[in-house]
């Protein structure tokens, strides 16, 4: 018998046994009998009229089975890819929602837009045929930037979307903000760009589809973070396949970061194609293909203004943002720069009035959707840059101005002026902890040491709060969600006492198989090794919304906790019968049911055995078996928060920024597995540092070509970019989740970009530099220094 490994322990991850020994089971590992190979033909143009496709030469090649195009989709009467959120403007007018055909019809709108699917016996034959497909394009000018897209005379993506504006959205009390600005002692202003990012999960997207004529059933294996949602969106809204005739499996998935939490056209095309060619079809994206088809993230242009009184108290915050949606609306697209952005503009501060306008704009680029943090890093970046600008303009210390405006611990629950109500938090505690951990008091010594080597050293702060655990369905519904956002778990106790959990979240790197097993091990007193977690298969798992928005533990873990509680309740009934005691007298602790105040005991295994061999069992009042299910819909978001401090060194000769120290003190609520939490924080911070210093998706205006379309040109953060990070938790418990958990998947990505850029600006502030756009590349820093108002010299 193994041991109970419960909440707060840090066992090695269960799943790593198979990953580290090369025994994972990814989509591209799967082979089906009679499998064919599919290749997508993608638009090489950012914007073009699709005049016609001649399949003759492609079909004539050996091994080619079929070539499918938008016309075939139309002829089969299939639906368009649905958007899961419908937002509206201030007058209640719904967003413009042009169709997103799974294969382009009439026009292509970004480089990578799919125009055809070629199926052959082998991948080589399919690729050869794809090259021969004659597609007649009438190339149109492209528009890729949001500022350019809304200008009069800009290329128009859709006939019925004037100025390419999908929705002119707003949140907050505009009049109250204007009044506050009139009374302000100081107004600080800031213009910034939130750079466009490409997720780059280690495993490229892939899919296999199969149709069984005997049962009229489809199976789709796909690299997805939410197989049940794919089944619903694709089956019910695109392909008209009844839910019980469609199985979606997302086996081991090699990282997602949001990129795999959308329903993609490739999934629909391949499933439809499998029935047409009566053979299984497999498609595996190349890395290059991922660059022009995986949904991108961020991409905002923002003007912000902060009104302050003479003591530096924030009176009002006004933010105007243009957000890039790309060529079509992706699954969560319009929700990200609106509902997941504006409500976080209060941060950890008591700003009484906030107004945010977001123009959601179509451009000839890959559709933009959620990427780790999704909206919340953008909000934090605007706010925390703004605070630094205001502090510097008013001559107030950057830490002091934050303290003066922070929500005190006692003021929680705290209602912000932008919808959300924070249940718990202690921003001042996180700040104080971070100041000590980062050794801020000796920063001056380190700065002088850098200066003696001709380097500029800077320190940057960022506090943040985020809304995690997506999401309360009722709340989301009011904001425009078209689906629910609960989670479900089934706890199946086997006759021998081992446990299998079926859960609707999806593990693709987060360590759920370990964390969830710890919860069960703790609550049921079952050995850690005797708990297995099943996910990612609509035939095996009852239902689920999947993994994104730091929701798995918060929402999924809560469902699991509730289902486990139900097992205990039933176990007590069985124990009461076996021990001939009243149910109220039965206690359950450490895997044993006992009669209070006696030494009469039944083990968990004995109760499980009795449930499945009910010879001595209250069959009149109780069903046999020991399996319970729970659905959990949260009452509120959770609000992790914290304080990050970055320290950088700038080489003025080359413009290179080196991150030399990084400290994070985060409030993530209850920590189930500290090692996994630390790993999540590390990974999140590295991704945020990537945005701040390295990553940038660049399109060519006019042609719409992606210039950063490979790892040779898109700079991912690497191990040698990072110092040893100091991460710590300073937790307050969530007041409404069953275990007090808040979620930790995105916090690192949310706090870090502003901390790093604030540090870079601090390093250069003596030269009159007041803002640096992301990524702070050597060329960009060198250019700033060339144009700086003061001579370049280490002080």
């Amino acid at each position, binding site marked *: 018998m193994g041991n109970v490994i419960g909440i707060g322990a840090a066992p090695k991850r269960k799943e790593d046994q198979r990953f580290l020994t090369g025994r994972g089971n990814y989509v591209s590992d799967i082979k089906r009998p009679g499998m064919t190979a599919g290749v997508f033909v993608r638009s090489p143009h950012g914007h073009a009229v699709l005049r016609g496709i001649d399949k003759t030469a492609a079909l004539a090649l050996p091994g080619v089975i079929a070539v499918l195009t938008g016309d075939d989709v139309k002829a089969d009467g299939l639906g368009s890819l649905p958007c899961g959120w419908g937002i509206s403007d201030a007058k209640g007018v719904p967003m413009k929602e042009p169709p997103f055909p799974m294969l382009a019809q009439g026009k292509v709108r970004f480089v990578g837009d799919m125009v055809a699917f070629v199926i052959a016996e082998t991948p*080589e034959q399919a*690729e*050869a045929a794809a*090259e021969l497909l004659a597609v007649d394009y009438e190339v149109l000018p492209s528009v890729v930037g949001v500022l350019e897209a809304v200008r009069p005379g800009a290329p128009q993506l859709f006939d019925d979307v004037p100025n390419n504006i999908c929705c002119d959205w707003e949140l907050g009390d505009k009049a109250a903000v204007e009044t506050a600005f009139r009374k302000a002692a100081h107004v600080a202003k800031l213009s910034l760009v939130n750079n466009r990012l490409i997720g780059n999960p280690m495993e490229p997207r892939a899919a296999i589809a199969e149709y069984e004529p005997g049962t009229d059933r489809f199976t789709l294996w796909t690299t997805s973070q939410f197989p049940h949602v794919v089944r619903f969106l694709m089956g019910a809204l695109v392909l008209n396949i009844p839910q019980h005739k469609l199985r979606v499996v997302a086996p081991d998935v090699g990282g997602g970061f949001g990129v795999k939490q959308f329903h993609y056209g490739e999934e629909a095309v391949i499933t439809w194609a499998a029935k047409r060619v009566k053979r299984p079809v497999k498609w595996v994206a190349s890395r*290059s293909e991922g660059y022009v088809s995986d949904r991108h993230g961020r991409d905002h242009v923002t003007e912000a203004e902060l009104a302050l009184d003479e003591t530096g108290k924030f009176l009002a915050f006004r933010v105007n943002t243009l957000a890039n949606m790309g060529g079509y609306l992706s699954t969560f697209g319009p929700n990200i720069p609106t509902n997941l952005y504006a409500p976080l503009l209060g941060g950890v501060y008591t700003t009484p009035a906030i107004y945010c306008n977001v123009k959601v704009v179509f451009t000839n680029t890959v559709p933009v959707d959620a990427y780790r943090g999704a909206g919340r890093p953008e909000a934090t970046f605007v706010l925390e840059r703004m605070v630094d600008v205001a502090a510097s303009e008013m001559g107030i210390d950057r830490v002091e101005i934050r303290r003066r405006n922070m929500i005190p611990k006692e003021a929680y629950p705290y209602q912000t002026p932008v919808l959300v109500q924070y249940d718990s938090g202690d921003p001042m505690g996180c700040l104080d902890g971070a100041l000590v951990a980062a050794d801020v008091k000796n920063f001056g010594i380190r700065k002088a040491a850098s200066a003696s080597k001709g380097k500029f050293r800077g320190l940057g702060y960022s506090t943040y709060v985020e809304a995690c655990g997506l999401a309360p369905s009722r709340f989301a519904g009011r904001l425009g969600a078209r689906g629910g956002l609960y989670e479900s778990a089934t706890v199946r106790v086997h006759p021998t006492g081992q446990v299998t959990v079926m859960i609707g979240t999806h593990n693709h790197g987060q360590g759920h198989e370990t964390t969830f097993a710890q919860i069960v091990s703790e609550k049921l007193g079952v050995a850690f090794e005797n708990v297995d977690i099943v996910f990612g298969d609509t035939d095996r798992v009852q239902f689920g919304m999947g993994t994104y928005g730091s929701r798995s533990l918060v929402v999924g873990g809560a469902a699991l906790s509730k289902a486990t509680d139900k097992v205990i309740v039933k176990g007590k009934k069985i124990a009461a019968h076996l021990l001939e005691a009243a149910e109220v007298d039965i206690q359950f602790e450490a895997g044993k049911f006992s009669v209070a105040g006696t030494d009469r005991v039944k083990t968990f295994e004995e109760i499980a055995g009795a449930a499945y061999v009910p010879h001595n069992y209250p069959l009149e009042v109780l069903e046999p078996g020991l399996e319970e299910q729970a659905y959990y819909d949260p009452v509120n978001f959770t609000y992790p928060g914290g304080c990050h401090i970055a320290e950088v060194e700038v080489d003025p*000769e*080359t*413009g290179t920024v080196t991150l030399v120290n990084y400290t994070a003190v985060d409030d993530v609520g209850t920590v189930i597995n500290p090692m996994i939490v630390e790993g999540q924080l590390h990974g999140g911070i590295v991704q945020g540092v990537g945005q701040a210093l*390295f990553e*940038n998706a*660049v399109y060519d205006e006019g042609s719409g070509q992606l*210039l*950063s379309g490979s*790892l*040779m*040109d*898109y*700079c*991912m953060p690497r191990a040698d970019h990072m110092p040893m990070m100091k991460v710590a938790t300073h937790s307050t418990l969530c007041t409404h989740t069953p275990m007090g958990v808040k979620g930790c998947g995105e916090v690192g990505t949310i706090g870090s970009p502003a901390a790093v850029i604030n540090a870079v600006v601090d390093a250069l502030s003596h030269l009159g530099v007041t803002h640096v756009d992301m990524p702070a*590349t*050597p*060329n960009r820093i*060198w*250019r700033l220094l060339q144009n700086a108002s003061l001579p370049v010299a280490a002080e």
Partner: protein
Amino acid sequence: MKPFAYHQPHQIPDAARLLTSVADSKLVAGGMTLIPTLKQRLASPPALVDLSRLGSLKGITDDGTTITIGAMTPHAVVAASKVVLTRIPGLAALASMIGDPAVRSRGTIGGSVANNDPAADYPAGVLGLGATIVTNTREIAADKFFLGLFETALEPGEIITAIRFPVPLKAGYAKFKAPASRYALVGVFVAKFAGGVRVAVTGAGPGVFRVPPMEEALSENFDPSAIAAIRIDAEGLTSDIHAEADYRAHLVTVMAKRAVDAALG
């Protein structure tokens, strides 16, 4: 990747014959550059002639005045070679800065020089040291070998067998890595010989080039201060999403100073 014939000759003449017998056939050395282009279907040679079985193309020798490195010698071997480390440490340092460990284990000096990528490191070392490219038919001076963007003096069917490096008094390499690819955004190799100093720049322009004003200044005074004020004209240098031409021009001076520093140890 499209299908192709694959040959593994054991003798140089066989390799040369196989290479020319079917038009558009390609040599493959480490494959680090060639294989990705095949996978992306950017090239589709009918046959590949693998040089890995030609034993005479491997190894490093020192004859007292020159170091000869066989074309099939991988970067990692050059980086760790006792001979190179003691006789031309700047060249070993250059090899150690190429790509990552996997690339250094497979990629070869011959492949790198034949490919003449405008951002590759070896061309700076080869031109900076005034090396000689030895082929199966002749010897070519570095100054006559590199002809611009991926262009070299190699004739169709010609095989590099070795590179011969004169041993300098001092040499150093400084590389500013391109953020994403980690090829040279700007790399500068400086070498001091009894007869004068050579300075070769890679990454900054469409091909490796020398900087005569810096060579003159350093021949006078082999010290970073001698070239600190020498500016390179940005005209003709590369501008891309990572670096604008004037920034590259600025980096040439910075990296040249650092290369001299490295050479001085």
